[in-house]
């Protein structure tokens, strides 16, 4: 007999109170923040972890015998352990701390790909990707003579799997694919895709910037080789990010940057690099940011990522219904498996104007190309308006959004 898997939905309204930024009014109206895909707000626990670290425990890490340095090192490395557990990495050596998803992907492009790519080799991505999962590959292709190829998507914003699999030839050295599209919200069927890539012998990097904040991620069961994400989208500080990579691959890669901390021994004749993960962490890291990120992981673990996903799925469904009821609305991105993000257009109002009119009513959405220009071109659009959810949003936020859109329709009537 199976026990039912669904739990009672946690009452997320309590969590909202943890976020001081959401308690303010903007342009005379209580703020409705629907821009978490760009950057999430932080709970008090994170803000206070950073501030109290600075007030009490700050010193440089790794090399000090004095008390503050030891405390700082413990907290910093403790955060790494939390991240390791959070994504179920098999070892803390696999958790490379970076400044964000973008740096994580550049690191793989330069240290994993650049030394081995040859003319004729290919890097495979999809039309859904964020610029951070496009431009680093363009740069390394230009540096090596390799070629960037792109798998098509359908009109709902889903990767065309057959076409993708057809592109997986032995020429492809790496597949870079988003977990969740930041522009359209499409959740890629990663297990399937990674399974095919592995059969074709292709290394897989997942851009998880929009995955980790919204669902539970288990890098081992996903089966990918690299998984990149950012702290600031998962309620932690800016300037923090993670590259998870298989130990074996990281071990074989040359360092990315040189400097303090990433070496065991330096002489002018020969420099011995440090062990993983330190080999990839040159210079003084973002100590306070990483400690804040550790607090964010604790906060999310306390709620449970499965509850977060459930909450956001139900809220996204409500958003879609309410938006669809507005006259003149066009939803952009209607993937079957979608959550947390919805792009749309209203009549022929330019998204930018929409953004301003909504801001006037205290509703913060993002407008434009969402750092996914090729995707916009694919849809023949200069941009969209995008409402994106965080765990702190609720139905009232959606109602405020639709109300504000009604007004916009009238201004431009």
């Amino acid at each position, binding site marked *: 007999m199976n026990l039912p898997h669904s739990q009672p939905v946690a009452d997320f309204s309590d969590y909202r109170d943890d976020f001081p930024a959401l308690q303010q009014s903007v342009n005379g109206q209580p703020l409705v923040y629907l821009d978490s895909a760009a950057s999430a707000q932080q709970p008090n626990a994170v803000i206070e972890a950073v501030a109290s670290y600075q007030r009490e425990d700050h010193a440089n890490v790794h090399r000090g015998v004095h008390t503050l340095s030891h405390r700082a090192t413990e907290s910093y490395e403790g955060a790494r352990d939390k991240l390791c557990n959070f994504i179920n990495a098999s070892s803390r050596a696999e958790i490379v701390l970076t400044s964000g998803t973008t740096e994580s992907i550049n690191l793989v492009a330069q240290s994993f790909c650049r030394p081995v790519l040859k003319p004729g080799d290919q890097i495979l991505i999809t039309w859904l990707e964020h610029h951070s999962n496009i431009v680093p590959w363009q740069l390394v292709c230009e540096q090596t003579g390799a070629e960037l190829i792109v798998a098509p998507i359908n009109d709902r914003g889903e990767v065309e799997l057959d076409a993708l699999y057809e592109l997986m030839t032995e020429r492809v050295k790496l597949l870079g694919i988003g977990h969740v599209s930041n522009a359209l919200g499409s959740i890629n069927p990663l297990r399937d895709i990674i399974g095919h890539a592995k059969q074709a012998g292709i290394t897989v990097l997942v851009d998880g910037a929009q995955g980790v904040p919204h669902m539970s991620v288990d890098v081992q069961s996903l089966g990918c080789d690299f998984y990149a994400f950012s702290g600031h989208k998962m309620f932690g500080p800016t300037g923090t990010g993670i590259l998870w990579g298989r130990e074996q691959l990281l071990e074989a890669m040359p360092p990315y940057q040189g400097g303090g901390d990433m070496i065991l021994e330096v002489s002018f004749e020969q420099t011995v690099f440090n062990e993983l993960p330190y080999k990839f962490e040159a210079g003084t890291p973002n100590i306070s940011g990483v400690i804040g990120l550790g607090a964010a992981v604790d906060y999310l673990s306390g709620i449970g990522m499965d509850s977060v996903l459930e909450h956001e799925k139900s809220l996204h469904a409500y958003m879609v219904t309410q938006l669809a009821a507005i006259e003149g609305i066009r939803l952009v991105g209607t993937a079957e498996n979608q959550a947390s993000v919805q792009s749309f257009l209203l009549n022929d*109002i*330019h*998204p*930018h*104007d929409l953004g*301003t*009119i909504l801001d*006037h*009513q205290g509703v913060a959405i993002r*407008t*434009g*190309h969402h750092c996914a*220009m090729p995707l*916009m071109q694919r849809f023949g659009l*200069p*941009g969209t308006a995008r409402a994106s959810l965080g765990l702190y949003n609720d139905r009232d936020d959606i109602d405020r959004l639709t109300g504000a859109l*009604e*007004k916009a329709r*009238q*201004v*431009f*009537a």
Partner: protein
Amino acid sequence: MNAAADNQDLQELYRELILDHARKPRNFGRLDAATHSAEGINPLCGDKLRLYLRIDSNDRIAGVSFEGSGCAISLASASLLTEAVSNLPVADADACFSTVTRRLTRQPENPAATTTANLSKLKALDGVRDHPSRIKCATLAWHALHAALHQQSQATTE
């Protein structure tokens, strides 16, 4: 403007004149026999337009047009620009650039920049001054004008 826009500020920004020029931009399209042109890009929102000028042998703007896509503010501003600078001497058009961009960014007037052009319609853009994130939309076409006059190929507002 519809009464539902009960917000004074919003009415200031989206005046009838602006909405009208945004919906039906004047002098829209490629200009035949253009002598000068420049592209304006606003990376903030992806607005992108190209301004064409035909400058005659008397250094007078004998023809002007634009094409591209953008928000209501940037389209209206470009459309109003084409009306304002048509038939102006080049130096005068350059003075317009200075006057308009300074007014929109609340900088003091440049006494050296005098123009005979009638810029009264452009007051309709003044609403953006209370919307700092939109000022660049309003100035985009003007930066393109400046670039075209000075033989640069591209202007951005960032």
